[in-house]
């Protein structure tokens, strides 16, 4: 039936096929390692990317928000959680007067539950094109002229093409630009100028009433830029000292980023530990299996030698067997990881609640190659160990033992 030549590869395949359970177990272990490696590294790279993006796009050094809403503004920035909190417009000028502050710009947040197709909470951010320094710099990457009334810029996760109209509270806006993916709350935000946002609040009054509708002088936050060379924390402290009694609280961007980066470090730490444990486990198991295999197959290997196989041929056989197992396991594991990490990336980023931005294709390709190599190292180590053991195999002794 089968006239295939008995090459080293074919003998290795026959050996593996006759030991189905051992082979399956080893493949599963290799797959688990490769899965964790790829999924873990894509995850931590995406988080790393998200953090970098966050610190690049923060713009402001300090965010001034009403008392009790320090956490909300972070939620809005990191996760796009719609938030509504307000204080008096005058805060902008007050903060501008604090020493060390060079730029201030007010922002107004509105939340909506009313979008064209699917009910999904969208954060509306009204900003002042005249004074803004936090949003305009990177909005302008996709926008030629400053935003005027009735125009909006939408985050990358929102549906709608440029030129299309979008309705909020029954008022329609023209989309003039889309932002590229940021991995942060901006992805689900809609940007418009401050006046439009205030008008919109008026409209929303009919839909349920809005504090901004009753008092047109409300804003949600003040973006603050501090003079270079000054300690941001000292300036933030000054603002707090001066206006804390008026219900103004501050969020220092540096602190926020370092908070994110420390929780990120915790997560990547877990991932790294998991990978290390699995890797060591795989090396250990493969070494033990190789040792046991060679011991229990001494007869078989002696027989090969009697029939005229060189030591090199036996080493190649061992190498072939463990390479096949690792290769199948690694490819299966990496495939499984790719099928989880990429299709479910939005779900994962929502679950993590941290800025999450997938690396670019070349970086991903590099990750794939690296994971592939690292997953195959245990098999190589086991093969080298096996080769050494086979080199030490004493023929006459095994023949004697067999008697």
């Amino acid at each position: 039936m089968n006239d295939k030549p008995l090459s080293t590869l074919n003998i290795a395949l026959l050996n593996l096929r006759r030991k189905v359970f051992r082979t399956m177990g080893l493949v599963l272990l290799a797959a688990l390692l490769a899965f964790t490696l790829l999924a873990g590294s894509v995850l931590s790279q995406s988080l790393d990317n998200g953090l970098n993006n966050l610190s690049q796009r923060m713009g402001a050094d300090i965010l001034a928000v009403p008392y009790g809403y320090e956490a909300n503004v972070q939620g809005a920035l990191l996760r796009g959680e719609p938030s509504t909190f307000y204080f008096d417009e005058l805060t902008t000028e007050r903060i501008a007067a604090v020493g060390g502050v060079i730029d201030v710009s007010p922002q107004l947040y509105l939340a909506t539950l009313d979008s064209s197709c699917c009910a999904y909470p969208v954060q509306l951010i009204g900003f002042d094109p005249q004074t803004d320094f936090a949003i305009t710099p990177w909005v302008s990457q996709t926008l030629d002229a400053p935003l005027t009334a009735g125009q909006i810029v939408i985050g990358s996760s929102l549906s709608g093409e440029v030129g299309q109209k979008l309705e909020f509270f029954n008022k329609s806006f023209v989309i003039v630009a889309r932002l590229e993916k940021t991995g942060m709350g901006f992805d689900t935000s809609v940007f418009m100028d401050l006046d439009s946002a205030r008008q919109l609040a008026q409209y929303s009054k009919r839909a349920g009433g809005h504090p901004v509708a009753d008092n047109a002088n409300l804003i949600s936050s003040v973006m603050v830029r501090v003079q270079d060379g000054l300690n941001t924390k000292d300036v933030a402290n000054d603002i707090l000292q001066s206006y804390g009694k008026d219900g103004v609280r501050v969020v220092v961007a540096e602190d926020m980023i370092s908070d994110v980066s420390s929780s990120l470090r915790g997560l990547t730490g877990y991932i790294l530990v998991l990978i290390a444990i699995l890797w060591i486990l795989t090396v250990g198991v493969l070494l033990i299996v190789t040792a046991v295999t060679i011991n229990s197959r001494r007869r078989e290997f002696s027989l090969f030698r009697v029939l005229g196989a060189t030591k090199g041929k036996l080493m190649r056989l061992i190498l072939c067997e463990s390479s096949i197992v690792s290769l199948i396991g690694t490819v299966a594991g990496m495939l499984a990881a790719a099928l989880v990490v990429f299709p479910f990336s939005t779900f994962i980023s929502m679950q993590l609640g941290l800025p999450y931005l997938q690396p670019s294709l070349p970086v991903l390709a590099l990750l794939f190659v690296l994971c592939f190599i690292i997953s195959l190292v245990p098999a190589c180590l086991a093969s080298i160990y096996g080769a050494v053991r086979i080199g030490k195999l004493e023929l006459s002794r095994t023949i004697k033992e067999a008697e």
Partner: protein
Amino acid sequence: MGSRMVPGIVIVLLGLFVVLVPAVIFPTCETQIETAAGGTVPMRCFWSGRAEIGIGALIAASGLLMLAFRPALVRAGIAVATALLGVLGILIPTVLIGGCESPMMDCNTTTFPAVIVANSLIVVVCVITALVLARSDRRLQVQAQQQATTNVTLDERGATHIEH
């Protein structure tokens, strides 16, 4: 014999998974749209989910049929049809019915990725199964032909022998 069952079992399990995703594991968005008349209707993603439940059930049934039939070509035929069902399962949420527009909605973050991955696996498994079965069938036919020709020569020899 054992390996003959593997594709059928895998397809049954994947089909059941496609049924369970919209039904239990990752349901589609539950919010309903208010119509002008004041009533409520489910969103598109809900119908996509419904369709996937049906497709998954059909795929699981095809897997059972593959387990039930023995001839290689019959099983290969079922595999091809099941692969096409898998393609339909991919097209439903992407092109034919679709779901919510926001990529942040449940259907786009969980339900659809899960059914698309499962359906892609079904397509891959079915195509491989069909190819393997078609090839093994061809090999059997070649063998049968060879046997037939050797039989003929033997018959001829037998005939000449009788003549002597």
